[in-house]
């Protein structure tokens, strides 16, 4: 696990009071990697260690730069790391205006005049904070403050942006207001983001990669859609189990106002005109919205009925009525994975076992984000 140019490689171990942490994971130097798990699983501690705000033994390389390596007695102090950190509370400097908050880190970072440098005007535009520049932080709403905090972190030209539950302190309305801005960042900026959250809905909207944590250990790490459909992991057993897919808009049916999106192994149809052909959308399919049929139903109202192959069937913990069926889209099952939660009775009646080719009926597909 040597760090190279395209990888963030982290390993930390130590104890904090009664809590012991022992984690190691790799994340790509692009996109959003979510550290996800229940409260108290060590997510924030890992993030603080990555920023150098806290020190546990371990090793951290970011895109080829070593920030910590105990074997080489190397530990870069926080201000010597090219990192941006967004705290749960915006923590703007109350004695500085919004503009001077934004420029605080910008003034102190080495000016990289290379093409990738983030410009003040671009960041301010992207986050929609242009009209706030001369205000004092106390005069901002919670959502506005958090946007300024993100802008401030980005303008210090970090190689890595760390976000510690940046939406947790906000109410539902403020969350909905700020999420589109985060998605825009994800789409427009190439900077890698490590995002801590215990809210699956946020993770589904933003994350590409997932590091699943529990009790100070890594349960699994990998692409979000893989982990969601892994019968060995708790995500599939949650009551709101779902998969997220990236879909590309292929056609708009103007007459019926339907949008077709191509996903690996099939095409999904969504009601409404959901954007121009060629653009990407992130979709979410809940396990409870998926049912299966042995033959193609000919008289169903459900539009999305795709051939698929069953990959796994797993029992629910403490539930002998329902099972989780993971299927790969396409007759060969090589496409995107979807999960369906059905009764054990139906599963046995239809003899749904791994390898069987079936038709997956998807009652509803939710569009959750504009996608990458």
């Amino acid at each position, binding site marked *: 696990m040597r760090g190279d140019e395209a990888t963030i490689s982290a390993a930390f171990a130590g104890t904090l009071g009664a809590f012991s942490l022992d984690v190691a994971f790799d994340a790509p130097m692009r996109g959003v990697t979510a550290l996800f798990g229940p409260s108290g699983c060590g997510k924030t501690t890992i993030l603080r260690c990555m*920023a*150098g*705000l806290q020190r546990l033994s371990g090793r951290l390389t970011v895109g080829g730069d070593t920030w910590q390596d105990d074997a080489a007695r190397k530990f870069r*102090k*926080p*201000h010597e*790391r090219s*990192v*941006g*950190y967004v*705290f749960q*509370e915006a*923590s703007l*400097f*109350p*004695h500085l205006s919004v503009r001077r908050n934004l420029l*605080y*880190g910008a003034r*102190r*970072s080495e000016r990289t005049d290379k093409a990738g440098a983030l410009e003040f005007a671009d960041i301010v535009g992207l986050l929609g904070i242009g009209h706030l520049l001369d205000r*004092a*932080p*106390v005069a901002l709403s919670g959502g506005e403050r958090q946007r300024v905090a993100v802008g*401030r*972190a980005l303008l*210090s030209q970090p190689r890595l942006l760390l976000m510690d539950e940046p939406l947790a302190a906000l109410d539902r309305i403020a969350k909905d207001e700020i999420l589109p801005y985060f998605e825009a960042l994800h789409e427009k900026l190439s900077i890698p983001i490590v995002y801590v959250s215990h809210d699956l809905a946020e993770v589904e909207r933003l994350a590409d990669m997932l590091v699943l944590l529990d009790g100070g250990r890594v349960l699994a790490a990998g692409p979000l859609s893989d982990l969601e459909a892994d019968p060995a992991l708790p995500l599939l057993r949650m009551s709101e189990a779902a998969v997220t897919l990236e879909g590309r808009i292929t056609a708009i049916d103007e007459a019926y106002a339907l949008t077709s999106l191509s996903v690996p192994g099939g095409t999904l149809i969504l009601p409404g005109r959901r954007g121009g052909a060629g653009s990407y959308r992130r979709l979410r399919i809940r396990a409870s919205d998926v049912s299966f049929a042995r033959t193609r139903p000919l008289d169903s109202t459900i539009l999305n009925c795709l051939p698929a192959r069953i990959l796994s069937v797993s029992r629910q913990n403490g539930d002998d009525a329902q099972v989780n069926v993971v299927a790969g889209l396409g007759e060969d099952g090589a496409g995107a994975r979807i999960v369906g939660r059905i009764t054990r009775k139906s599963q046995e009646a239809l003899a749904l076992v791994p390898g069987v080719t079936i038709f997956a009926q998807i009652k509803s597909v939710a569009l959750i984000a504009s996608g990458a």
Partner: protein
Amino acid sequence: MLDFDELWSPIRLTLELAAISTVALLFVGTPIAWWLARSKARWKEAVATVVALPLVLPPTVMGFYLLIALGPNGPGGWLAGLFGGRSLAFTFESLVIGSVFYSMPFVVQPIRNAFEAFGDRPLEVAATLRASPWDAFWSVAVPLARPGFLTGAVLGFAHTVGEFGVVLMIGGNIPGETKVLSVAIYDYVETLQWTQAHILAGGMLVFSFAVILSMMLIEKRIGRPGL
């Protein structure tokens, strides 16, 4: 008749002493306050107690030990020896040193409280924005602790102006050198010069009232925005 020069001399001396002592108090007190606010050392409360001792110690006790320390056989005498003197006691410098010790808790406590009030977070934010600890101290901690500095400076100044016991012990009563206001008033009363005592005492009364009032007004104004 009133001799205005004689009246003015202790006032000027007092103001000089208070001004110099306040500057010295901020220089010495700020690092102590910072350490007390940020250190995780177990024995830091012991240090805090030493700093706070003048609050309860009779000034004569403080003055007595300072007299010994500053005298010919103490470190003060040794220091004076370097400059060709014999002792630091009964000099203006000794009053400054005494004032710094005596007024220290009034300066350290508000500044420490102000440093503690904003916690670790603003400094962590500054660090993740590339500010070195020294940089963060000046650009974040000091501005955020501004009301504490103001209170500390005003209290330190005012307390030095009102000092009597320590001055008497280590400064004596040398006109133009150590004869400050409070000693002068005492002197006038001793010698039954009531008019002069009235002028100085009344002036002190007005001064104290003005100091505390303006401090409260300023705190009200600058303590609010953003905090």
